[in-house]
């Protein structure tokens, strides 16, 4: 009975139509993505997985989900100088980007203390209450995570440019334009592709405070 069933399976497999090249390409595409995920999981780096289809940005380490952020909007930007594009927005998906760093930097303010000379009774030290993380690391309205190789993520909460009065908004727009124009016109290798990620203020602040140094990034490409 068992052998008959096996023979039937073999016959069925033999008569099944051959896969199309599209099917094979899709399978190969999935495997390629899995391989990249596995490579990241095997490395000793923290990494972000940005999945535009799932509207999620996940902070991961060794295949473990550490934090998940909801992405409310995503745009792809390329630098242009006088209407002429300086780079092509291609080849940024499905690629692993390394050494992500925050700009502005979240600097760790280390306090150095020299202990009092030792005595048998000891010295009563004054209790110093340190700042909370919110006080210690103020989060700018918009910030970047820049990766080696030219990709950068610009994170900002929705409606960032619409806050404040007329002059304040004008100043914000002008300073944003100036920063963008400088980055676009610099001709360097940074910010050749910019992903504009919109997420809630809470998530944007949390990501800024939590992001470990040298974080990698994988942008999950949409399935073909």
């Amino acid at each position: 009975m068992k052998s008959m069933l096996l023979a039937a399976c073999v016959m069925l497999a033999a008569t099944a139509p051959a896969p199309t090249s599209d099917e094979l390409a899709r399978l190969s595409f999935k495997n390629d993505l899995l391989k990249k995920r596995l490579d990241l999981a095997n490395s000793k780096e923290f990494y972000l997985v940005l999945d535009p289809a799932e509207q999620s940005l996940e902070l991961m380490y060794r295949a473990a989900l550490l934090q998940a952020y909801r992405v409310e909007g995503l745009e792809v930007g390329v630098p242009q100088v006088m209407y002429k594009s300086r780079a092509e927005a291609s080849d940024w998906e499905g690629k692993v980007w390394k050494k992500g760093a925050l700009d502005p930097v979240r600097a760790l303010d280390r306090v150095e203390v020299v202990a009092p000379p030792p005595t048998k009774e000891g010295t009563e030290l004054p209790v110093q209450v340190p700042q909370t993380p919110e006080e210690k690391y103020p989060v700018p309205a918009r910030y970047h995570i820049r990766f080696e190789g030219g990709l950068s993520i610009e994170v900002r909460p929705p409606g960032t440019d619409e806050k404040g009065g007329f002059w304040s908004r004008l100043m914000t727009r002008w300073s944003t334009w100036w920063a963008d124009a400088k980055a676009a016109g610099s001709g360097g290798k940074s910010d050749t592709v910019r992903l504009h990620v919109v997420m809630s203020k809470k998530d944007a602040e949390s990501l800024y405070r939590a992001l470990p140094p040298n974080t990698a990034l994988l942008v999950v490409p949409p399935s073909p």
Partner: protein
Amino acid sequence: MMEGYPLSEDESSPRRGRRVAIIFPAPKRRRGIWVVGVLLAAIAVAMIVGRGTGYAYSSAPVRAALPPFDEPANGAAAKKLQQKLLAQNKQLSAALAKLSPSGTYLVVDQTQNRLFVMNDDQVVRTSVCSAGSGMILKDSGNKKKWVFDTPRGVFKVRNRISNPIWKKPDWAFVEEGKTIPKNPEERFESGTLGKYALYLEDGYMIHGTLYTRLLGRSVTHGCIRLGPDDLQAVWDAAPIGTPVYIF
């Protein structure tokens, strides 16, 4: 237009009665119009150039084109390749699943002082904790130095102790300006670590605290401190072997 003013009031002066003309130039309206026009044109050009300089954004693509793929020579070769790709897919998925934690694991966000009890990628409990202060302590002779950081990475709960007794390390005495005892028994202190201690690696622990008012702030010497209720919940959820991810 000319206006005359007497040069001197002195009637005896031989130059009496001589007048000097002061000429006020008529405003050149045309020049003003030119200046305003050029200024406006410069602003317009700057705005046009400005708009075309910076970043041009477009929506992220929602559907990708199929990557180039070499078509197999015949149906049999295609089937063989499909089998190979399916096997590879199974192997990769299994390897990834093996690495990813299943069941309960702990996640510590050391910058924001939060501990998450996770279960299969779902947050079960969020607790306020305290992680390493990042402080550098030097002894009075500047011979030794300690950095109070909580290490990043993945650890495991190696041991669990209720009513733990703390064996004070050297820095605990140095910090208080006390002489480091030679007798090891003088290092033991009970009550400081709270009701439970979960030992990770290299002397790092998750434990309780006497200073609950400092929870949420980075104050520790590298360990992770929790309040009594959260410590109880973590104790109940995390047996020996539970992975602890610190970032």
